[in-house]
C-alpha cells in the first residue's frame, strides 16, 4: 500500500509584514473615506490604495486589517489584490518605472525605452511582469495604455508621467532617481 504523503503547503499569495500597524492619523483618514459610501465594502479599493501608498505593498496583515475595518472576510480583499494590476503583493523598488507597452507608444519606440532600462539596470527585457533590481532600488514594468498616446512614448516614474521619452530623456529620468 502506498503511503499517503501530506499535501504540500499552498504558498501564501501575500507577503507577511509582522510589524504592520496603522497609525491613528491614517486610520482616521480612512474612516473618513469609508463615510463616502453607503456600503462599507465600496471603500475597499480606496483603502487598499491608501495602504499601498503608505507601506509600498499590500501584505497579509494589511488585508486582514482592511477586512476587519470593512466587516468583510479577507478573501474579499484578496480577490481584489490578485485581480487589479496596480496592487503589489510584495515590496517593489523605491523607483517604479512603468513603461507603456500599447500600440501608439510601441510605434513611437517604447520597447526600446523598456530595453534601455532593463539593460542599464541588469534586468531581463523579455521577462513577464514587474522586475526589481537586487538592491531594491528600481522596479521596471511594462504596463498597458496610460492614456497619453498623443505624446508617445510615455512612462510613469512612481506617480509622475513622463511624455515623449527619448533614450536621452530615459537616461535623465534614471539619473534623477536618487
Amino acid at each position, binding site marked *: 500500500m502506498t503511503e499517503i504523503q501530506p499535501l504540500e503547503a499552498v504558498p501564501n499569495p501575500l507577503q507577511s509584514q509582522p510589524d504592520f500597524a496603522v497609525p491613528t492619523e491614517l486610520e482616521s483618514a480612512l474612516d473618513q473615506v469609508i463615510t*463616502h*459610501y*453607503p*456600503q462599507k*465594502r*465600496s*471603500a*475597499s*479599493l*480606496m483603502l*487598499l*490604495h491608501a495602504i499601498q501608498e503608505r507601506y509600498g505593498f499590500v501584505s497579509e496583515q494589511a488585508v486582514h486589517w482592511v477586512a476587519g475595518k*470593512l466587516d468583510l472576510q479577507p478573501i*474579499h480583499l484578496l*480577490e*481584489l489584490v490578485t*485581480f*487589479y*494590476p*496596480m*496592487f503589489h503583493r510584495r515590496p517593489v523598488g523605491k523607483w517604479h518605472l*512603468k513603461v507603456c*507597452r*500599447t*500600440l*501608439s507608444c*510601441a*510605434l513611437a519606440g517604447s520597447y526600446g525605452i523598456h530595453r534601455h532600462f*532593463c539593460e542599464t539596470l541588469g534586468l*531581463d*527585457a*523579455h521577462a513577464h511582469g514587474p522586475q526589481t533590481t537586487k538592491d531594491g532600488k528600481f522596479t521596471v514594468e511594462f*504596463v*498597458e*495604455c*496610460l*492614456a*497619453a*498616446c*498623443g*505624446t*508617445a512614448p510615455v512612462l*510613469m516614474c512612481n*506617480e509622475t*508621467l513622463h511624455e515623449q521619452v527619448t533614450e536621452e530623456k530615459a537616461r535623465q529620468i534614471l539619473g534623477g532617481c536618487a
Partner: protein
Amino acid sequence: MPSEHRLILKYIDQPGYTPDLDCYLKHGGYRGLQKALTLPPRPLGDGKSLSGPEQIREDVKLSGLRGRGGAGFSCGLKWSFVDRRSGKPIYLICNADESEPGTFKDRQIIHKDPHQLIEGMIIACYANDVHLAYIYIRGEMPEGARILEKSISEAKARGFLGPNICGSGYPLEIHVHRGAGAYICGEETGLIESLEGKRPYPRIKPPYFPAVLGLYQCPTIVNNVETLCNIKHIVEMGGAAFAQLGTPNNTGTRVVSLSGQVRRPGYYEIEVGKATLGELIFDPNFGGGLRAGRALKAVIPGGSSAKVFKAGEKFALKRKGPDGKEVEEPVDMLDLPYDFDTLIKAGSMSGSSAIIVLDDSADIVGALANISEFYAHESCGQCTPCREGSLWMSKALHRLTHGEGRAMDADYLLQIANHIPGGRTICAFGEACSWPVQSFVTKFKDEFVARGRADEVKRVKEEVDPSAGSASRHGAVAKAP
C-alpha cells in the same frame, strides 16, 4: 478648409488658464449651473407644467447628444430609461476610466479644466434628482484624482456642492473613486461592480441595466467625462442651438485623439462630421500628414477595438446628389466624414474618437500582435470565449512575430475571432478583442500568410540542416544571457 471648433476645450491650453476655481469663475464658470437651478416651471398649456429638471432632460434629448465614451448611445434616451418610481435613490457615476488604447481626451479635461466636468456633473445630477455621485477615475491618473479632489473641495467651499447648492436647497455630494489598472472597469456594469468593492466582472443585461439595477441595485446613470461636460454647454446654449452644431443625428463637437505615425499627434475638437478622416490626418490644422517619404498603410478610426481601415479602401455610401436624390457612390476611406453613423456604415466605428495612424514603416502583423496582447491581458476572465479566445489569438500572433508562425495561422486567427462576439459573452469586450483581429487579418491577409509561410520554409531548412538554425527564430525572444 476644416478647422477646430472648440467648445469643451475652449480655454484649455490658453495662456494663463489654470484649473482652479477662481480662473474658472472668471471665464464664466458655474453660470450654466445657476441657470439650471433657477429655471422656472414651463407651463404646458393643459394645466400641467415642466419642472426645471424635466426641462433639462427634454433639452438634452432635443440636443441629440450621443455618449462620448465609445458606444455613441443617445444621452437623453439613456436618462429617460432611469427608473424614477422605484423609490430607491438614483446615482450618477462619471466614467473617467479612460483606457481604450489611443484615447487621451478625458485626461486633458480632468487635468486642465476639472471644474467644467464638475459643473456638468452637478447639472446632470440636478436634472436626474441625484444626491450622491462618483467620479470613477483610473488608477494610473493619481494626479488627475488629486486635481479633482481639490476642485470638489473648492466647489464645496463656495457652495456649488454640498447640502444647499447656491441656496436652491438642492443637496449633492461628489466623491472621487480610484480604479486600479483594469481596462474592464470602463465597461459600465464592470465599473459598478468595481465601485461596490468587487472584482469588475460585467453584469449580464438583462436584468442588470444600470438605469434600473445599477449601483447597489439602484437606478444609476453612467456617463463619460466629455458627455457630462457637454451637459453644461447644452444648458447654457439650449438644446436646439447645440443640435445645430455638427451634422444631423451627429450633433455637437467631439474631441478627437490623434496618435501614431503622424506629424502632429494630439487632441483636436471638431464639429462632429465636419471634417473627414483624411483631413484629420493630413490637414495642417490637424495631423499635418505623415513623416517625410512615408505612405499611409492603415488607420484605426476609433480606439484599438475599432475595425481597421486599409489605405485606399472604398465604401459604397448613400449621399445626396446635386439634384437632391440619394445616390450610392464609392467613397474613399479618407473621405469619410468623421462622425458616429458614417463610420458604422463603413463597418467600423468612431468609438472613443481615437485615431491611430499606421504608415508603411509599421509592421501590420506586429501591430495586431500588440493590440491582441492588450486584450489578452485585460480580459476579466468571466466568459470562456473571451478569456480563452483573446489569449489564443495573442499566442498565435506572438508565434507569427517571433519566427514560429504557420501559413494557416491567418485562418486560425479568423476562426477564433469569429467565434467570440455575437452574444457569446456578457459584455462587449468579446467584440472589442475580436474586431481588430477580424479586420486586420481579412484586410491584410497576404501579409499574415506570407509571414507564416516564411517561417515554415525556414523550419524545413533547419530540419534538413540543423546547423542552419535561423537567427530570428529565437533571436527576438531569446533570454538575456
